[in-house]
Every structure is written in structure tokens, then in C-alpha cells.
């Protein structure tokens, strides 16, 4: 379970987060959605414990992301927006590197790599260097690397960004499968259809705040819109600079 309470974060004069609070329960896919620059990435960075909030707190399975950073990081698997592969290492070496950093024992690690290769249908490319991999293959390597330690909580930033239809569907199937295993999935995107297709709960972030959260049906009822894209626009429009200009 992932929780955020009243997160504030400033970079110089720019306010990235201005009181973000939400929770992502186990056994559900929580979609974090918002326009570009809304603060999604900053919120995620605080949740995966590489940044500290100026105010407020966040926790994973009850462990505070600031005071219990390493316990938090043991319990999460993260696919950041920048996939960040090493061009000269093979897919297998990437997964092995992170597995070792998680302290996995050699035999178990190699078995886990084979298992992930099967789940993600990584063909022979798992033994090719990352430099020549396609976007879909790169994503699979980054995803396998994030899941090598079998984490209970999974955070995915734009996981289907740039993928073809078949690969996108494979990723969505994997996300559902992990949810059905009882894991907590926090999934971040700026594409509404993608989030709508898969999320059990939605958290809409706009200009550093949570503009609304709930199940898609709850949000539809609240805004009176059927189409989730319209729901999103109705909710974020209240904060939109255009609306401010018009008012």
C-alpha cells in the first residue's frame, strides 16, 4: 500500500507539489493522471524515496520514505519515465545488476531472470546489448529490471509510452496480472484512454494538487460526464490557466 499525505515540494521559486495526498491500496491499479508539469513525476520521486518532501510525508507498506528509505526501496519496483539502460550491457546483465544490488542470491537470481524472460516474452534479445534494442524491447528490459526482486508495490511511469498496440496490450495484461496477485500498482500517465482502460482508481493531479480522486464511476457521477476524457477536462479546467485568463 502506498500513501501520500499533504506533500509539498518547491524547486527554487517553482512550486511542484502544493499539498498532494492520496492512497493506492493493495490489489488495485491506481492511475495517477494529470497534465504535463502537474507534479506527477515529483510525487513519484518522493514515493520511491530519492527525494524528500519539504512538508508532508509518504509511506509504503507503513514505512516512511524519508526515515525508512531502504525498507521502502526493498518493497517497490519502479519503472521511471527515463528507462535509463546502459548501451553496452545486455538485457540479462541489466536485470542481474539490479538483482544483485537487491542482494538476491545467485541461483535464485538466475532462475528469476529466466522466469521474467518468459513472462515478458523476451526472446533472444535478452542477450543483446541495449544499444540496438527497439522501444518495446527496451521497456521490457527496464520492466524486468524493476520487477527482479518480486516487489509488492509497483510504480510505473508512462509504461506504454511509445509502444505498438501488441506491446501495449501485453503490458496492460501484465499489470492486471500483478493486480490479481494482490499487489499495489501505482501507474502514471498523461494519456486518459490508457489510464481509463486499466485503472481501478483514479487520482487526478493538477498544478501540484489533487483535483479529484475515486473510482472512474464516482468521478463520472461527480462531473456528470460519461466520457473519462471529458471528466478529466472538467476537473482540470477549474485549475487551467486558460480559464483563469478568461475569468
Amino acid at each position: 500500500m502506498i500513501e501520500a499525505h499533504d506533500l509539498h515540494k518547491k524547486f527554487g521559486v517553482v512550486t511542484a507539489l502544493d499539498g498532494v495526498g492520496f492512497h493506492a491500496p493493495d490489489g488495485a491499479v491506481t492511475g495517477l493522471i494529470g497534465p504535463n508539469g502537474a507534479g506527477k513525476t515529483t510525487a513519484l520521486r518522493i514515493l520511491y524515496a530519492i527525494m524528500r518532501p519539504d512538508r508532508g510525508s509518504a509511506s509504503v507498506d507503513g514505512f516512511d520514505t524519508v526515515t525508512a528509505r531502504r525498507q521502502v526501496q526493498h518493497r517497490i519496483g519502479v519503472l521511471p519515465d527515463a528507462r535509463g539502460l546502459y548501451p553496452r550491457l545486455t538485457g540479462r546483465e541489466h536485470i542481474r545488476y539490479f538483482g544483485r544490488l537487491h542482494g538476491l542470491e545467485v541461483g535464485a537470481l538466475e532462475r528469476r531472470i529466466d522466469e521474467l524472460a518468459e513472462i515478458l516474452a523476451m526472446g533472444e534479445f535478452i542477450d543483446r546489448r541495449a544499444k540496438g534494442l527497439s522501444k518495446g524491447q527496451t521497456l521490457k528490459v527496464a520492466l524486468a529490471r524493476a520487477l527482479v526482486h518480486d516487489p509488492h508495490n509497483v510504480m510505473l511511469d508512462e509504461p506504454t509510452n511509445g509502444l505498438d498496440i501488441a506491446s501495449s496490450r501485453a503490458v496492460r495484461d501484465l499489470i492486471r496480472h500483478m493486480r490479481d496477485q494482490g499487489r499495489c500498482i501505482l501507474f502514471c500517465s498523461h494519456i486518459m484512454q490508457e489510464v481509463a482502460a486499466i485503472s481501478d482508481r483514479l487520482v487526478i493531479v493538477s498544478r501540484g494538487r489533487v483535483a479529484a480522486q475515486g473510482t472512474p464511476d464516482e468521478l463520472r457521477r461527480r462531473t456528470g460526464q460519461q466520457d473519462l476524457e471529458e471528466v478529466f477536462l472538467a476537473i482540470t479546467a477549474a485549475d487551467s490557466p486558460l480559464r483563469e485568463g478568461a475569468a
Partner: protein
Amino acid sequence: MEHLRAMGVVLLKEVTDNVRDRRAMLLALVYPLMAPLLIGVLINMFSGISGGADDDAEKAKPALAVYGGDRAPALIAFLQGRGYSILPVTGDPKEMVRTGKADNIIAVSKNFHEKYDAKQPAEVFVLLDSSRLRGLSALKRSMTLLGDFNREIGQKRLVEAGVDPALAAPLTVSSVNISESTNITDFFLYMIPPFIIFTIFMGGIYLAVDSTSGERERGSLEPLLINPVERWALMMGKFAAALLFTALAVFIHLLAFKGAFFWAAGTESSFYRALSPTVMISLFFVALPLMFFAVGVQVIIATLTRSYKEAQTYLGLMPLVPALPGLILVFSPLKAQSWMMAIPIFAQTVVFGDLVRGDVSSALDIALSMVITLGFASVLALIAAWFYEREQVIFGG
């Protein structure tokens, strides 16, 4: 233990990654060969020059190229009497010198015979190409020999005229070489310290940049920091990898010097003997704390700069600046003193100098240089670790 394990994992990854990188390998394996190669070539060239100046009895004397020697039998006899063989020149003497077929040529003037017999000054020319170094030493040899001939014949004529030849020689000039070394080329030995310093600051530079600013720019630093490992342990793994590459570069550098000296001057040369295995091992160990120091500076700069390019700009200057004191000391060697040991880089420069000259510094001084530099290096490592802890590390700056 756990941290040490994580450091080992990072070290192994960085080494695997960079061994596959042509540029990293170039810096660690090929660059260290350049300076020794250059010095080898220089020694080879210069030994021809300085060797000719002393003309030891044991050494075979070079043949002297003489144009129009048949017009000056007395001169030829004198030169042959000094043990030189004569190489008569038949073609155009100027052309021969210009094309480098002869280092220089003693040309006897057309009317030499008449003038000489008439006891008037007879003209002799020494042709040389002053843009060729070998020509200069040959010139010195020719001028000395002709001067000797001049004096000998002049004295003989004074005696014949009933004059005391001492009257014509108000000065007796001799140069006394007080250098312990027998060869001017020993100068090149003093160039070893700055080159070692240069290599220390160069060998691991690519890896330090690639594994810090490069990692950030590729976007791979963020995923790495999400692992449940202390950041300082990650940093130290990279540090150790850069240190390993630096040590490899210095090791190759020293071997290359030994090889170049052997090739250029043979096993009997002062160069080859100066770099005995003991001296080489000492140089390496004295260099170790400075390698630690160099990597510390590199990691700090690579952590603070925003991009790979920016890091390279600063780090490109780096090997040169620390090598400067050593370059100055090439021209005025300094004996190591205890106070110098407190200054990293300078301490190693003077100790290296003592070691290659065979002028062994006191063990205490050497230990002092190592401990103090290691102290500075540890502070740098702490600063680097602190920079890694800051969240700005993912953005740079």
C-alpha cells in the same frame, strides 16, 4: 559487509561496461604509451648528438666527409692521425648536406694548397644544415678538430720563426663537467615524474565522468538510486572502478617507459638502470594515494557538472595542471624535503624525481607523503559521498 558487497557489484558492473568502451580503454591502455614512446624517440635522436661530442676512445669514431681533401694532404694526415677515417666527397657537397646524406662536410677551398704552402691563412668551410640536430654535434666535432689542427700548425710555425708559442696562447680553456651523470640525455629521466602525474589524473577520467555525469545524462542514475543501497556505497563502487583503471594506466605507463628506454638506449643505459624493478614498484606505491586523490577530484567534478560535456571541459584541463610543477622541476630538479610532503601532487613529484635519479628520499618522507595525500583523498571521498546524498545529484549542479 552488505555495503562492501554492493560496492563490489557496482565495481564489477562499471568494469564490465567500460571494458566494452573503446574510449575508456584508449585512455587507460593506449594513452599511457604515448609519452614513453615520445621520450624513447627523443633519447634515440639525442644520443647521436651527445655521443658525438665526447668521442670516447672505446667508441668507434665516425667517418669525416671531406670535399677536396686531395688539396690538403697535411690536414687529411692530421685527421687520420686522430683516428678518423676520411670519406671523400665527390658530388655537390651542399646538396649532400641539404638532403641529409652527410651531417656535415669539411670543404677545402680551391687555392688551399698555394695559400697553405705560402703560410697564409687557407680557407676551409664546414657545411651544415642547422635545422638538423645531428648536424650540430657533427659541427662541434669538426670545429674542434680544425681548431686543434690550426693550433698545432700555428705553434710549429712560431717555433720555426723562433717565437715562443706560449705568447700566442694567453688562455688555456677547458670545460669541467661536474655532473655525476655521464650523459646529457639523463635530462629525460626528469620528465618521468610529470608524465606519471599526468597519467594518474588521466587514466580513470573517462570512467569517472561516464559513471557519474554520463549516468545522469543517460537517465540511468535515477533507476540506480532507487535500489535499496546506501548512495555512498554506490559512489564508492564507481570510485573503485575509476581507481582500478587509473592504476592500470599507471602500471602500463611505467612498463612502457622501461620498454622505451630499452629500445632507445639498451640495457646498459642509465635510463634502463634508473627504472629498476625496485624503483618501479616504489613509484607505483608512492603514486597510489595520489590516484585516490585524483579520482576523488574527478568524481566531485563529474557529480557537480550538469552534463557530460561540461564535465569533460573541466576534466580535460585537469591532468595538465597537476603536471605543471613537475614540468618546471625538469629544468631545476629539487631535493625532497619534509615540508613538501604535506602538499599532494607536489610531494609525489619530488619523490618521483628522487626515485628516478636514484637519490632515494628518506623512508619517513615517503611515508609522510602517502599518509597526508591519503588523508586529503579521504576528505575528497567524503565530500563526493555528501554530494551523492543530495537530491540534486539526479539533476546535476
